[in-house]
Each structure stands twice: as C-alpha cells, then as structure tokens.
C-alpha cells in the first residue's frame, strides 16, 4: 500500500516541521526552488540525481548552482539539494548516507535543505531500516549515516520550541517518482 505509506510519511514529516510536496519533473523542481532561494545552491553528489541533468536545467532556469568547493561555498550558500536513500513513514524521516563530506556540508551549513525522495523508497518503521544499516556498514569501511526528521530545532530556552538553531531552518522533502528504487542509492 504505497499510497498509505506516503500519506503516513507526509503527516509525520509535517508534524516535525518539514514541508512535503510531490514534484513531477526537473522543471517543476527548478520552479519550486526558484521561488524559495536567492543565492548559491549546493548540489550534492547524489547518484539518484545524476540522471536528471540538474546543473544544466537549473542553470538555464537562472539558479546559482554550486557543485564543488563546498567548504568555501557552504558558508555563503543559502540552500543544499540532495537525494535520499530512503524514508521512514512512522517518524517522517529521510535517511541519507552522508559519508561524502559534500553531502554533509550541503545538509548542515545552509539555511534550507531540499531533499528529493522517490516515494517507492519509504519504509514503514525504523526497525525495517536496520537491515539496510547493516548493508551500509558492510559496503562502506567508513560510514556517516544521517537520519533527518524535520528542521533543526531547540527548546533550550524556556522549553519553547524554536526552529533553525544550527542546522537548516527549513527542510523540504520533494517526492519525485521514478527517481530511484534502490535504498542503497542516495
């Protein structure tokens, strides 16, 4: 029942402050991004996105796309765009194998994180992700795996929930079909 999982995922992700939208293609994506960013966008190296020819499409649309030198660019970039390995419906989580430093910088330093997820790759629970975690650890001698659920938050002052303390203050999860059906692929 993929539709039910998508609905559950969407609700849970929205409950923790993420935005979830269905995106049909590159054009819709660039339009979505164009409305929300006005500065450099870090496009992280993600196999699931490579087939989309994004740098070219986005540049044509007038977006300022950065594809390397993230350490320097990260400090000034306004957004990061990544793929995702899979999602977890119970908690509205996106999981990113983030061993490549560029992925980590694109998802930590800029204000906004846009993540493209194929809705086929939504699992129901965190327990179902455990075999995949095993697989990552078998494949990668060094591994940095990130579960991301909503934007950065804090309640450290008077317990008042406040968004965007150190990490991104916006998390946009863009569901795009046909992106990838392999949870080992980001």
């Amino acid at each position: 029942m993929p539709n039910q999982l998508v609905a559950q995922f969407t609700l849970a992700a929205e409950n923790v402050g993420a935005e979830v939208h269905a995106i049909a293609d590159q054009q819709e994506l660039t339009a979505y991004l164009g409305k929300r960013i006005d500065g450099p966008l870090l496009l992280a190296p993600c196999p699931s996105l490579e087939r989309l020819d994004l740098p070219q499409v986005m540049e044509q649309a007038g977006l300022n796309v950065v594809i390397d030198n993230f350490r320097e660019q990260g400090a000034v970039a306004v957004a990061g765009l990544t793929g995702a390995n899979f999602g977890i419906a119970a908690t509205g989580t996106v999981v990113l194998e983030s061993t490549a430093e560029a992925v980590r910088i694109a998802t930590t330093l800029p204000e906004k994180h846009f993540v493209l997820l194929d809705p086929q790759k939504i699992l129901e629970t965190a327990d179902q992700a455990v075999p995949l975690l095993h697989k990552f650890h078998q494949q990668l001698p060094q591994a940095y795996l990130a579960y991301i659920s909503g934007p950065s938050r804090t309640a450290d002052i008077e317990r008042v929930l406040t968004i965007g303390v150190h990490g991104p203050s916006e998390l946009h999860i863009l569901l795009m079909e046909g992106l990838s059906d392999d949870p080992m692929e980001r």
Partner: protein
Amino acid sequence: MNKQERSRHYQDRVRKSLQKPHLQDTLHRFADAYVAAREAAFAGHDFEALRVAIGEMKDQVRDNLSRYQAEFVANAEAAGATVFLAQNASEANAYICNLAKERGVKKVVKSKSMASEETHLNRALNEADIETLETDLGEWILQLSGERPSHMVMPAIHMLKEEVAELFSEVTGKEEPAEIPHLVRLARKQLRQAYLDADMGITGANVAIAETGGIALVTNEGNARLTTTLPKIHVALVGLEKLVPTIEDANRIINVLPKNATGQLITSYITWIRGAVPCADESKELHIVLLDNGRTALAESPHCRDALRCIKCGACANVCPVYQTVGGHVFGHVYISAIGVILTAFFHGLDNAAELVRACIGCRSCVAICPSNIDLESIILHLREVIGEEEGVGAGKSLVFKQVMRNRKLFHGMLRAASLLQKPLTRGERTIRHLPLFFSGLTDWRTLPAIADKPLRDLWVNIPQKIDKPRYRVAFFAGCLNDFVYPEMGLDLVKVLNHLNVEVTFPMEQSCCGVPALYSGDRGTAVAMAEQNLDALLQDNPDYVITSCPTCTMALQRDFTDLLKDNPVWAEKAQRLAAITLDVSRFIVDKLDGKALFADASGGEKVTYHDSCHLKRGAGVWEQPRQLLSDSGHELTEMAHSDRCCGFGGSYSFTSHPDIAREILGDKIQDINASGASCVAMDCPGCLMQIRGGLEKQEIAVRAKHTIELLAETLS
C-alpha cells in the same frame, strides 16, 4: 569539607532554590507537558516490553563488558579510529589536551556531552590554553553563565529568557531583547564561524556499537553534525556503559530515548558515524576515548550495577517531585536526579552523593518511568545504608533505632508516654496545631495528629467479632500509625472485614515494620524488626496478613525477603509472609470479590482519590480502591496528578527535608482543591497525616479519609 559543613551548604542551597518560584513553575509546567507528550509518543508501543528488553540487553553488555569492549575497539580501529581507554577523568582529559597540543589545536567546538561534564573537560582545556566553545544552545548559555547543567537533556531549563538575553548582551556588547527566536538566531550567528575555524570537534555518544565500531548521536539542533563534519579532528568521549552489541540494539535504544526524554517520536537528527570519514579531501582524524571512571566498579556492585543500564534520557528528573521543587543544581551533582544520585556516588565519590542520597523522598515515580527498568529507589536506599555505615545515621536516630525501636516494649511504652506528654499541646483535640520553639516549623504548614489515648492493641480485646464460619482468618498488621495514631481506622477495618465474613486477629507482638530505620540507612535495626514481625505474624498461621499502610505492605512483601534472603533460618519465613500479605483494598476486591458486597451501600459523596506512592508503584494497586469507592456509591472524580507524591515520606517531612515536603504538599492540596471533591480518599495513614494536616491548616473543607474509613461509613 566536613560533614556538618557539607550539610549546611546543602541546606543553604535547598533554601535558596525554594526562593525561586519561577524555577518551580518552569519545572512543573515542563513535567505536565512532558507527561502528555510522552504518552502520545508511546501510543501503540508496549513500554513495559521495550524497557525490559533494553534492561536485559544492557545487562548482557555489563556481564561481558571486556568482550564487547574488545570487539568495539577492534572494529573502530579497523575503520581508522584511534581508541583510548581512560581509567578516570584526569586520564581522559590529559589524553584530549595532549592530543590538542600535539596537533596545534587552538580552537575546539563541542557538542553536548555529559561525559565531558563528568570529567570537567572544559576546565582542563582552558587550563591548557585551548579555546573551547560549547555549541549546544543550552550548554553555551551555561558556559557563559559559568553554571553546570541542571538537567541532562535540557541543561539550561532553570534559566529565564531574560537571563539568557543578559548573557548574550555581554557577548555582543549591545542590549539584546529577551525574545526567544531572536536569541536562538543570535546563537546561530555567533557560533557559526566557530565551526569553520575550529581545529577539533568534541562530542559524546549515545551508543557505541560493538559490531560496527561506530557511534550514534541523538540530537535536535544540528550542532553535533557540524562538530563532526567541519573540524579535521573528531574526539568522541564515550562512557563505557554506552556500549551495545549490535545495530539492532542501538536502534532499540534510539527508538525509546527521544520518546522518553522529551516526548518526541524522534529527534531531528540521528547520526551514525563509523571510522575516519572523509574530511577536506583527506580522512578525518577520529579519536574515541572510552571512559571508565568508576563504571567497572559500578558493574561489580551487586546492589547498584543496574544503574549502568541508564541511557541518559533524564526522565527520572522530569517526574521527580523533589527535582520539580528544587531543580537539578540542588538535587544533583553533575548528573542529576535519581540516576544522578547513584552515578555521583560512583563517578564523583560518596561524599558528593551523601546529601543527595537523603534528598530522595522514595516515591518511585522514577522507577515507573525508567526506560531501562532500573529500580532507582532500591539502589538509592542501598546507598543510604552504605552512607549510614560510613558516616552513621545521626546520633539521635541511631539511639531511637538501636536502643528503642528494637525493643518493642520500650518503643511502645515510649509512644504511650508520649500520648500523655503531648496533652498540653493537643488542648484536648485530636490534632496538634502548634508546636513550641524549634519544632514549630513542623506545624507551620500542617497540623499533626495527636498520639491516641489508647492504641489499637489496647482496644482490640473489646472489639466484638461475631462470625460463625469465617471465610478467612486474617492477621492485621497495623503499623505504628494505625496502631498508635489512628486506632479508629483499625476498628473500621474490622467492621468492614467482619461484614464481609472475615475474622481479623491482631498479633500483639507485632511492632514497627522497620522501614524508618531502613530508609535512614540502619539495616541492622531493619533486620531485627523483620525477624520480630515475622515471628509475630506467622505464629497463628493466618490465611492472609492484611495491611492498611502501603509502606508496611512493601516492607512485608519486599523488604523482609530482601533483608533476610541470605539467612537460611529466616528466608523461607519471609517468602511465606510476602506471599500472603495484601493491602486491605486489594484483599477485598481480589480475594473477597468485594464488588457485590457493597451493592447496597450508598456513599453518595463526591470523592477524589490520591494514589499513595508505595501502593501504586510499590504494590501495584490503584484500581481496587477506586472500584471500592464507586461500588459503595460514591461519585469518583479524578484530581490532576493523582499519583504524585504528597510529600510525606516519613522522616523526610519531619527531620530531613521538611521544607521540600511542604512544597510538595502544597501542590497536592492545590490539585485536591481543584478537583471539586468534598472528600479525598487514600490508602495510607502516612499520606493521610500529611494531606489531612495540610487541608486543616489551610482550612479547606475537604475531608481526608482512608478508603477503609469510607467503606465503614457506608455500612453504618
């Protein structure tokens, strides 16, 4: 610092904390929000099963610690990490400071790590002239204010936004408004450059996974991700108790931790790191410092070792009435609240734990909420015994316990004498409203009941019991309060049980259950009392032993067997008594099918019910008295926080912490009043003494009654 000085300092801190109403407001509001959020987060989950599984898994690690440690080290090193085992805090700090010096580190960013608080790492880094910046918002605030965390998960929960604004104004050099979004934004801006400039990032870990050699971090702010990504060196300071065997086990903890810590389904970020991951076209330098610092000693302590199961969720503070009253700077050292008492004893020495061990009121709310299934209260009681043995339980108490309480005739003789001596104070009434001189503090906020003219034991022979063929013959264990202060409650118990065709006996050799001595750390007296009572209660081979005081119930059901388990003469007797001991409400409902028996009763009063700590969380009884009250025709209305402690705690409210007890009682009175009931029922004479005293003193027209009294009323 000697003992007297230490105690004075501590009492001083208690007093000061009680003068901060905003602290109590904050912690109470948090507690309410937490309980609701947590319940929602665990909806559809079997918390009991989850925590049993975590406890078992952690025990397995503890029992095979060297094996899992070796597995972790081998896998971490294979992935490019350097692992150092620090025996104590100074070894850990020295390792990190030396590493920093060798690598020419000038600036360190840290994400929140309780282990680094434990070792006072910041102080060591400062002394080594290494600039260190806390990046967790709460920790940064505390770094600026020079304080330590007052909560494991929400370190700056004690501070107001105005205080934070003042601290931040000093940083920026201009006046910053006390608006939380602005302050959070400001922290983001101020700390951002530090991540980029820092040469070293220091984190803790929530789990260390043996089968992968990796760690996982559970965070909300995203600072740990930056701390582990940007600087070229990553040091993870990890307590040995964080080891888990597998990814499944890590997942098990991560599933429960945010739910139980803050009522979140999951935190914003779960970060799994294994090995020296890429960093600026090279590999990161990863050092994992495994910290012992008392943990293997704790693993060897049969009474205390369950504390190593702790996953540091902080829930034991969230629900603790003492924490909610005085905060973590008083009820804590580095680690706070119930688990803090225990960890302080092992990580920071018995001396630092001594006052805290006595600050626990013993309500067991932490035990009920612990996600690792730790019986925190029992461990704290054990530590109280240890401290009692090391430091003595106090001359006055020692005299009472050893010389008086162990000798039943003398003890009861003194209680009878007290009944006469108190006459000038009672003015012929059943309660004492004022006490002279330095005792007056005890009647400032509650009246105290007078000791009865005649104890229950003297009245017993004259109680008629006409039962031809009793269903059961039960022995009544009255406990001191029922016997000497509230004998009428015993008469009511007989009346109700006779009505239900049960004959009640009163073994005259019974005496105090020994809990006051045990809870004060005098195990020897507790053992002596257990033996006396076992002989007395089992003598006539009753069908059941019935109690009206849940603390006595726990003594008979739990403490006697524990105290005597290694004694072949007594162990069997203690088990036999435990098996036939029941509190009276449970006895009526479970054994007599009391429901039908009160069908004709017409209570007709609006009654609210207070759950006594030891009845609900000790004996596991809370439905039965409610059932009896509604079956006997009363309208039951629930108060808020019905199972929150009333602040009695035996000697807690008389000698050790009357100030805290008064505050906790104040909360309870408020909840009773707000329920709109005209009567509050409970199943504990101690709670009754406290609550009735508070209601009387505040002149609130709500009756406080033991359930058995209300049942007897309906039979009149």
